[in-house]
């Protein structure tokens, strides 16, 4: 595993150190977590239910109370900032559910999400329609009427329309058909290829690890294991506990 050097190079795009966070003050769910994501890197967080995966992502997005530790983005401390300020800072967060505005049309969702851009908003919205042809066809219908896969695509498009530098995704393939899930994962690859950092929480850990550069395994709000995605994918212990892979029993 290659770690970024502590000095010299500018360091990773997102750096979380010793994070303590939770929904109720005094009852942290994330207890001492450290994670970093480099520019253009895809990092997956895996771990059992209740390990603090979603809470970590919400903390970075500014949605839960941070009680300790620090979060730095591009070198500056962003812990404690409001979600809308973080969005302006280039963080996009795609929640697991309720991630589009159902009463707004597809186009209105995108126009709304593009408002935090200073420059050519219309051009960015059109660029999203170029990327997601399905959405262009359905631009005038309400997002509540989209299929699960289309809705997920819209949620991702809403994240991308504002040209973020870091995309946080909570279970982006949950509830999708295998084909739609594959499309989403392929899309995540292409997002990262543009230099955008991606931090992913995925129930479908095996599929997520295949597209990831690195991964962290959490347990009870703390770091358990970390390493290159390939290594974790082939680690028999990780496989047994988190990936649902049965170890071949030697006869």
């Amino acid at each position, binding site marked *: 595993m290659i770690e970024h050097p502590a000095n010299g190079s500018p360091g990773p795009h997102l750096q979380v150190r010793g994070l303590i966070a939770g929904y109720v003050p005094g009852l942290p769910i994330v207890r001492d977590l450290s994670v970093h994501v480099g520019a253009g890197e895809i990092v997956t967080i895996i771990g059992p239910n209740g390990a603090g995966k979603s809470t970590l992502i919400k903390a970075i997005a500014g*949605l839960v109370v941070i009680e300790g530790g620090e979060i730095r983005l591009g070198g500056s401390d962003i812990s404690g900032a409001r979600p809308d300020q973080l969005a302006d800072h280039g963080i996009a967060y795609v929640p697991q559910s309720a991630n*589009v*505005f159902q009463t707004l049309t597809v186009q209105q969702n995108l126009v709304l999400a593009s408002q935090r851009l200073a420059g050519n908003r219309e051009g960015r919205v059109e660029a999203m329609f170029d990327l997601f042809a399905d959405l262009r066809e359905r631009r005038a219908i309400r997002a509540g009427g989209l299929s699960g896969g289309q809705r997920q695509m819209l949620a991702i498009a*809403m994240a991308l329309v504002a040209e973020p530098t870091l995309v946080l995704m909570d279970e982006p393939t949950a509830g999708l058909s295998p084909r739609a899930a594959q499309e989403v994962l392929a899309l995540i690859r292409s997002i990262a290829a543009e230099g955008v950092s991606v931090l992913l929480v995925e129930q479908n850990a095996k599929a997520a690890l295949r597209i990831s550069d690195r991964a962290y395994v959490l347990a009870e709000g703390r770091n358990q294991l970390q390493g290159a995605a390939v290594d974790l994918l082939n680690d028999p212990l990780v496989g047994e506990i988190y990936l649902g892979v049965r170890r071949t029993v030697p006869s």
Partner: protein
Amino acid sequence: MIQSLFDGILVGAILSLGAIGLTMIMHILRFANFSHAELLSIGAYSALAFDGLLQALVPALAQKFPALSLTVSLLIAIVLAMAMTGLSAIAIDRLVFRRLRENAGPLTMVFASFGVALIVRNVIGLIFGLRAQHYGSDIAFAILVSADPFLLIKPDQLFVLGVTLVLMLALHLTLSRTPFGFALRAVSENPVLAQVNGINLNRMIRMTWIIGGAIAAVAGILYALNNQLSPVMGRDLTLSLFAAAIVGGIGSIYGAVLGGFLVGLASSLALLVVPAGYNPAIPFLIILVTLYLRPNGLFGEAR
């Protein structure tokens, strides 16, 4: 019958305007604001005050529009009252609701809203007196539009309907065409997702109070034009406003508009079949029937 329909539409228009702010606040801040109807009173009385002030300063403004009891000064006073009521709504939020939002539960906010309603009602009574008042001293005569079917319309009432339509159209265009309108709807549907998309929640809450308050002011003034000003007008309207918001579905602005007209029409048409004394029970019945048949209202989302 035709007369009842017309009266119902008129009352409905006023209720619709009042219910718009109620449903927006109820959905975004997640509490039933029993002081919302007092914003109608604040609007109606501040228009009375501004009207008097303007006429005292510039007597020429007492000029009346043909056939209406409406004066130029009152027309200006309406705009000033809208601003005044919006600002009052923000002040009340700052002083009471915002603190409770941060430190207490939703039920506390509901109780606090009862307290706010009592305070506002009594402060208005202290300043303006408890007797009923009218904007102008003259009576505007109704015009007999037709004798059979019987239909009497006051020109003021047409003004009321016209203002309502213009306001609703303006609100509709804002909500359906402008990014600001999308943001308002987004906050109303999913405040967390709205924030994640770069929307400053506190700013939108302030805007909601301003818009809800300004529209409530117009509703209060129109109610006073159609009936009279009284410190307890808010109390009398609260139940109907809640009925309108609940029928339409909490959070749905279009639902509130439709709900307002439905409640207005139902109350008015009910006069044909039940004794007038039972009329205040009609909104209650509407709430009960709605909650029984369609708990989320006509346009409300399932929760």
